[in-house]
């Protein structure tokens, strides 16, 4: 099978690997962009899908939206490497 890992799943993995795995380590779109070198518009697009899937939890922090993985999101990331 020559399926590629979907882009939103790649973002989910990167969020996990940079440590956004609990609310106190939530990151803004700007911060995620700095870590991943991805365009903010692209991050916003994929985050919307990840939130809908229940893999990422949005929170309001210091006036900006921040994001971190849910336990299901963490488990989903681990399926790639386990």
């Amino acid at each position, binding site marked *: 099978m020559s399926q590629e890992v979907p882009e939103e799943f790649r973002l989910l993995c990167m969020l996990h690997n940079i440590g956004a*795995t609990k609310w106190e380590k939530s990151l803004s779109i700007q911060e995620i962009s700095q870590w991943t070198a991805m365009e903010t518009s692209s991050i916003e697009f994929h985050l919307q899908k990840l939130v809908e899937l229940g893999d990422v939890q949005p929170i309001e922090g210091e006036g900006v939206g921040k994001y971190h993985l849910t336990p299901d999101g963490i488990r989903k990331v*681990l*399926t790639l490497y*386990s």
Partner: protein
Amino acid sequence: MRICILTWEYPPRVVGGIARHCEGLAKAIAHEGHEVHIFTLDFPGAPDYEEIDGVKIYRTVTELGHPNFLTWALLFNHFLEKRLGQVSQQVKFDILHVHDWLTTPAGISSKYRLGKPMVLTVHSTEVGRAQGIHNPDSFAIDGMEWWATYEANKVIVTSNSMKGELCGHFHLPADKIEVISNAIELTKYNISIDRQSVRGRYGVGPHEKLVLCVGRLVPQKGIEHLIHAVPSISWRHPEARFVIVGEGWLKSHLEHLARTTGHGWKIRFTGFIPDSEVIALMTSADVLVIPSIYEPFGIVALEGMAARVPVVASQVGGLAEVVEHDRTGILVYSRNPESVAWGVDRILSDPGHARWLTENARERIQKTYSWEAIAKKTMKVYKEVGE
């Protein structure tokens, strides 16, 4: 004996078989009166230290991150090693037991710092998981796996198939490898459930047949081959309904594939469900299909056999050792939907034979796959390398 186990997965951080293996082994060894310390990664809601069933669990926070998985893995190893270093000032470990490449950097450094032997359990290899080495990170992981087998005083694998893979791919001497299978806690499967109610939760009616598949939704699990088999199975058994349990990056593709079969409405994807619900589903199913294309052991086959559900599994890796064809289950060709359909038909068409297979399977598990037996064999390895 004081045993230090390093693993990146430990409950509630559970995905594949590693967490279940480490938990079963650790509890059984602790039950024998040994001191077991688990060093693992943190998980939301889990404390950074706790003791369960005599097993001491240290969960480590990785304070630094990196988007690249391999770099992140090396970083978390630093924090694991630091925690282990702190604890080892109070606890004099006799042995280090590392599970898979993911925790080997911390394991190898600790082996030299503490001057203690290191045992490595290889649950799978990069070349097997990825079905080849396709990128620089994969190449590096493959190298780390080889390095870990070289540094280990003894290597444990869960199947003869895996032993062959290590001897062939890493040119490891056969006498450095010990085959100690996985095991299962049978008592978890001695449950009384309302079968109809469980099936009803997944849209399976009283007169329909539940074909179950449990596994990560990744290419190595071969779930596409079951989906391709659905039309053939449905032709012979129109009452068949399919429930696929698990998560993974391939989910959208598999859901799309299910819709293209013309029988998409019969196929249900559940995502993650708790272990207790998986056991209830297995106990309620008419057949469990394991269509993997790579499976070093295949603990899900043991789980199905313990739940008394007839198992249809690909004849690959450890599955071909766990399932004895037409005695404890049905083996089919891997990557072959027609063969999968044949296997499912064999079960659904002959309930008497299916029942006989499940009775044999349960008996086999009781005799061969207990954690007590696996703990004894593992302790023998510890003593051997400790001499």
